[in-house]
Every structure is written in C-alpha cells, then in structure tokens.
C-alpha cells in the first residue's frame, strides 16, 4: 500500500515553516506582477506604490483571520473543518466552492502564461500546445501533494532570486524625480488604487489548505505575515523600479510594463535579455497555478470521494487542455475573465473568512462544539 500523498492529517505530508511561507508567497506572486506597475500608474500615477501598503494590510489581516479559523480544527483543511462544525453537506458545498475557485484560478493563470509565451516569444504557435508543454511537470508535482509543492516553491523562489539582482541594473536608468511630489493629488487616487493591490495579494487563501500540513502550527501566524511581507517587498521593488525608469506618462502606455523595461537591459554578449527573463519567470508563474491545481483537484476528490489522486490530476489537466482547444481565450477575454475572477477572489479570500470567523467564535462559546 503506497502512502496517500494527499492526506492532510498524515505526518508524512507535513511541510516546514519556510515551505509554508514560500508556498503562500508563491501563490501571490505571478502574472499580476508583470502588469501591476502599469495598472497602478493608470489609476494613481507615480503614487500608486503607496497603495501597495494598504493591500498588504488587508491581506495580512485576512490571512491572520484564516489562521484563527483553522486553529479550531487543526488536523483538517477548510473542507474537513466545515464538515466538522456544520455537517457533511456544508463540507461538500465548501469542497465544491473551492474546487471551482481553485480550478478557475489555476486555469486562468496557466492560460495567461501560455498567452505571454505566445505574445512575447512564439507568436505563431497555438496556445494549447504551449500549455501542453507544462503538463508533465505539473502532473508530477500535483500527485506529490503538498510536500512536493512546498519543496518546489522553495527551490523556485531560491532559483529566481537572481532576477531581482538583474533588475538592479535598471536603477542607473532611473530618475528619482519621477516619484516627487509624494501624494501629488492627495489620498483619493491612492485609495482608488487599493482595490487593485488587494487583488494582487490573492493567493494567501491557500492557508485554508496548507494549515493542517504545517509541522509547527505555532509558527502559522507569523508565517503568513512573513509571506505577505515578502510579497509586498517584491511588489514594491518592482513597482518602484518601473516608476523610476519609465517617465510618468509613459508607463501607462505599456501592458506588461515590467517585461518591457527588462528589454533595455543588455550585455555585450547578449541582447534581448527579456526573453531569458521571461523564460525563467515562467517558473515563478508556474508556482502560482500548480498549487492552485492541486487544491482544486484535492477539493473535487473530497467532493466525489472515489478515485485515486492520479486520476484527478490527469482529468484536470485534460479538461484544461480541452477548454483551451475549444474556447482558446484571447488577451481581452483573459483580461475580462481575470477581472471577473478577482471579484470571486475578494469574496472567497476576504469576505468569507471574516464571516466564518464571526460565526465560529460565537459557536465556540458553547462547550458542546469544542470537541
């Protein structure tokens, strides 16, 4: 009998605190970073970076609340927790909700990744074929469960650190006058940008699934804080670099401001450094959708109970391929779908935890529930 890699209660599937932090961070940092500097500038000009702090505040608060919720039933994911407190059918409903949410999450990002490759490197290749190239590694990671995902995120984060260093080359092109005056139009434009920044921190809801795997649960609270802070620092760094290099009215002209700016890095021995960066950045993007794919498949398996993890992993990948083959979303559709999805994300990651926490803390006052 082989080990069940997908069982959250099993000691063999536990992850270290570092893996916990980096997995949460991994799900946050992905395709959004490429367009974020431009998105922020389009709303609040070069003051957009200030809004990142607000996004960080909200996401940290929401992640801490999620940790509080998960403490009520430490050995299971959100699905087991709901089933435990509210009955089997609520558990099924939760499994359905997260199954749908995480699958859409995974699909939209995988599709966006394929579109990026298509638009930047291989204009004439089909999206579904570009997608297919990532299926085998994704499959092996997904069937490995949370431990494999934790290790994957750990190694990718370490291997992609050099990219931040490469971005430093751009500082000599920058002009700090672009940032002045701070708050040029007051706080209002910054406040209007908060919505965008909150969405870019989505991904911390993975705590719902990761918490039972964490080997030392005392570290959960500062772990989620560390993950959010690390994401904030990277976002700040990338956004500021873009704001310094682009002139204030220029940045809003570009769709993927971060990728375009990398184009100006050149070495004597190498031009078109952006292609190398993009290829390596694909690893960073893959660590957002691979965990989401796992959480989606995990939820659906909990919903249907029957079948082996392998089957679910294959089935999910096959369905994603089929959807792209039939629908083949273009950039606009992808953009719109993401916008629509971010509303769902706000509900699942920000509104739901607050409500659930309220209900749970009232329930837990009655001794009967404290089993």
């Amino acid at each position: 009998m082989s080990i069940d890699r997908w069982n959250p209660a099993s000691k063999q599937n536990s992850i270290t605190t570092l893996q916990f932090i980096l997995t949460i961070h991994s799900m946050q940092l992905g395709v959004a970073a490429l367009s974020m500097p431009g998105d922020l500038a389009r709303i609040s000009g070069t003051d957009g970076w200030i809004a990142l702090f607000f996004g960080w505040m909200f996401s940290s608060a929401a992640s801490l609340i999620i940790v509080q919720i998960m403490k009520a039933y430490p050995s299971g994911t959100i699905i087991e927790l709901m089933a435990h407190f509210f009955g089997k059918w609520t558990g099924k409903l939760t499994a359905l909700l997260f199954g749908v949410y995480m699958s859409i999450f995974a699909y939209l990002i995988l599709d966006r990744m394929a579109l990026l490759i298509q638009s930047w490197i291989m204009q004439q290749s089909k999206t579904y074929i570009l997608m297919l190239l990532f299926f085998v590694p994704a499959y092996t990671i997904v069937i490995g469960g949370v431990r494999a995902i934790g290790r994957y995120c750990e190694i990718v984060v370490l291997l992609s650190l050099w990219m931040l260093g490469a971005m430093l080359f751009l500082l000599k092109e920058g002009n700090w006058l672009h940032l002045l005056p701070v708050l040029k139009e007051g706080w209002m434009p910054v406040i209007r940008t908060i919505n965008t920044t909150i969405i870019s921190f989505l991904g911390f809801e993975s705590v719902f699934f990761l918490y039972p795997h964490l080997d030392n649960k005392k570290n959960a609270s500062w772990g989620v804080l560390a993950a959010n802070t690390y994401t904030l620092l990277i976002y700040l760094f990338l956004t500021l670099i873009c704001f310094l290099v682009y002139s204030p009215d220029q940045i809003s002209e570009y769709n993927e401001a971060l990728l375009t700016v990398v184009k100006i890095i050149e070495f004597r021995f190498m031009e078109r450094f952006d292609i190398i960066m993009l290829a390596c950045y694909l690893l960073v993007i893959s660590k957002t959708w691979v965990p989401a794919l796992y959480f989606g498949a995990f939820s659906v398996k909990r919903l249907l109970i029957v079948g082996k993890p392998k089957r679910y992993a294959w089935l999910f990948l096959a369905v994603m391929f089929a959807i792209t083959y039939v629908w083949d979303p273009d950039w606009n559709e992808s953009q719109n779908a993401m916008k629509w999805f971010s509303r769902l994300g706000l509900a699942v990651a920000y509104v739901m935890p607050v409500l659930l926490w309220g209900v749970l803390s009232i329930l837990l006052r009655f001794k009967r529930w404290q089993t």
Partner: protein
Amino acid sequence: MRRALSLLLAAALLTTISGCRDRVDLENVTLMLMMGLDLDENNKLVIYASSPVFSKEAKEKNEVTQVNAETLRDSRGKLEARVSALISTGKLQNILVGKKLLQHPGWIKLLDLFYRDSKTRINARLIAVDGPVGEIMYFAPANKRRLSLHIAKLVDTANERNLVEKATLFEFNRQLLERGKMPIITGLRKTKREVVADESILLDNSGMYVGSLDLEENEILQILQDDQISDLSLTFLLPEQGANKDKALNLGALSCYVVDVKRKVRTGYSDGRFRFDLDFRLPIRLTERLFSFDVQKDTAQLEKQIDKQLQAQMKAVVDKLQKHAVDPIGLGLFARAYRYRDWKKVQDQWGEAFKNADIRIRVRTEIIDMGEIR
C-alpha cells in the same frame, strides 16, 4: 506493459513539438541592422533596409534595398520580396530618419511598430540624418567595416565622449512622453568621404524638428543635464591670457577634464513664471595650458577666468534652447517635483513656460590637478 505505455505517451508528446511553428533557420533570416525612413521627391515614404550578407560569393558585405510603403510593417513584405531571406528586426542597430520626415507632423506614429511588436529590439538607436537618408544607406566606404555597425560604434563612442546625444527607441519614447522634457537625438550627416556624427537634434514633444546643437553646445548641455558619461573635455580661450580667435596660433587656450558635475537646482515660481537657480560645482583637471601661469599661487584667479567663460557658454546654450522653446535639460521634472501646483497649469505647454522661465546659472570650477608639469 505500463512501461511501454508511458514510453508511447512520451513519444506522442514529442510530436507536439513540431506544432511550434515559430522555428526559423538562421539561413532563412535576413538580419536587418539598419533601417532608414525618409520622404522622397514626391513626398512619399521610403523605407531603406540594410542587412549583412554572409555569403562568400557576394562581392559586397551589405545588402541594401529601398521600397515605397505606407507604414513600416507594410514595407516588410515589399522588402522581403527583394532581400535574400526573411527579415528580422531583432538585431536592429540604427534607425535613420531623414530631416525631411522629421519636419512632417505625425511622423512619430510610424514608430508604433517598434513598441508594439515584442520581437523588435527596443535599444536600437534613433538617428536623425541631415540630407537624404539614401546617400548614407548606400554609402560603402572602403576603409570601414559594415556601415551599419560602423555607425553604431561611431554614435556610441561619440556619445561616450559627450559629443552627441544618443537616444534609443526606449529612451526616445520616454522623453517624448515626458511632458517636462523634450527629446534630443543624434544627428548624422555625410561628407564626401565619411559619415560624421557631430550634431544633436532638438525635437519638441510632438517629435517635430526644432533645431540642432553642435559638439561644443552638446558638451555644455551634458553639464546642464548633469549627465556626463565619461571624460568631458573642454577647451577655453581666455581673453585675459591674450586669446584671440583671429590669430593662427591661439596661445591663450586652456583645456581641462571635468571630473564631476555637482548640480544643485532650486525651483521657484513668481509672477506667472518659473525661476530656476542652477548651481554648478565642477572639479576640473588641467590637461593643456598654452600660456605660462603660476597655477599654485594664483589658482583662484585662473578659476575665475574659466568660470566666466563657462558661464557665458552655458548661458548661450540655455538662451538658444529658450529661443526654440525646447527643454532637453529636463527642468520640467524639477518644476513638477517641487512646484506641482504651478506645474499643473503649464504641464501641457511646458515649452512655452520654459521659454519664459528665469534661468540663472552659477558656475564654480575648482582646479584639483594641474598635471605633470607646472
């Protein structure tokens, strides 16, 4: 059985690789290194393409073609019908734009392709040409390497010595869309024997030709911009030392390296006009002095004489820029950063506001080294 099945599957996946249709063999690529845009006698757009030839059989190392086209992308097909293989702009070095085109409203829209198409190199140099672009494109001097690479090197090194400005496509776009600064690009011209890069072309914020700066003026501009790249060498004729332009030998001359530029800008606004106080402190190193002078004893006196000359030269450049109502110095950035409310009123007509601005310059040089001999 299982093993055979997974092997079969792996083999099946291999076939998908042929689905990537973007594969291009190097033999089938014509690397366009230099592109030329100009208007012909009938005011129609002409596109020139210059690309290297790697065949041993070819007598010339460069392949140059020209076509009439509506847009740059429109020209690609027509060019491909003429050059040896498929055109790629991924290695583009220079884009030469004729002065005639620079004076045509809306010409910058043509560049859209370079920014939209992710395959183009965004670091290609944008160069203005005084005279017909075709003359340079077809020019093949015997004592130089491929002209496209020669021009690239020429512009880079001249820029390194602060003699001309250099703008890549990205840099040009940045300056163009910066309301507080006007673009300035390299100017190139052809003499009978060679190509000369000794001008910097001033453009306004719609990309239209406004005027030009010569070598000396550009060196001064680099100081004004606080953007000197490496050794900035200046030569002064000091009237106090008996310099006189009419003499065959000018023994009142002095040359120096500007080691560093320390610029302080103070921004003010009163009576509807901006005021900029530009304070410069320049540590200099003497490299040439044709008159006798006790530098150790009378340093201050010599510094003062240099200051006077330099200040006059800087004033002249600023006056010229103000006359043309273009601000390549980027004082608009200071206006925006420190006087935002006043800037908001003029941000769309910065050229005019710059023209009316009160710009005061103070220069203090400091001789830090007189060289090997006294």
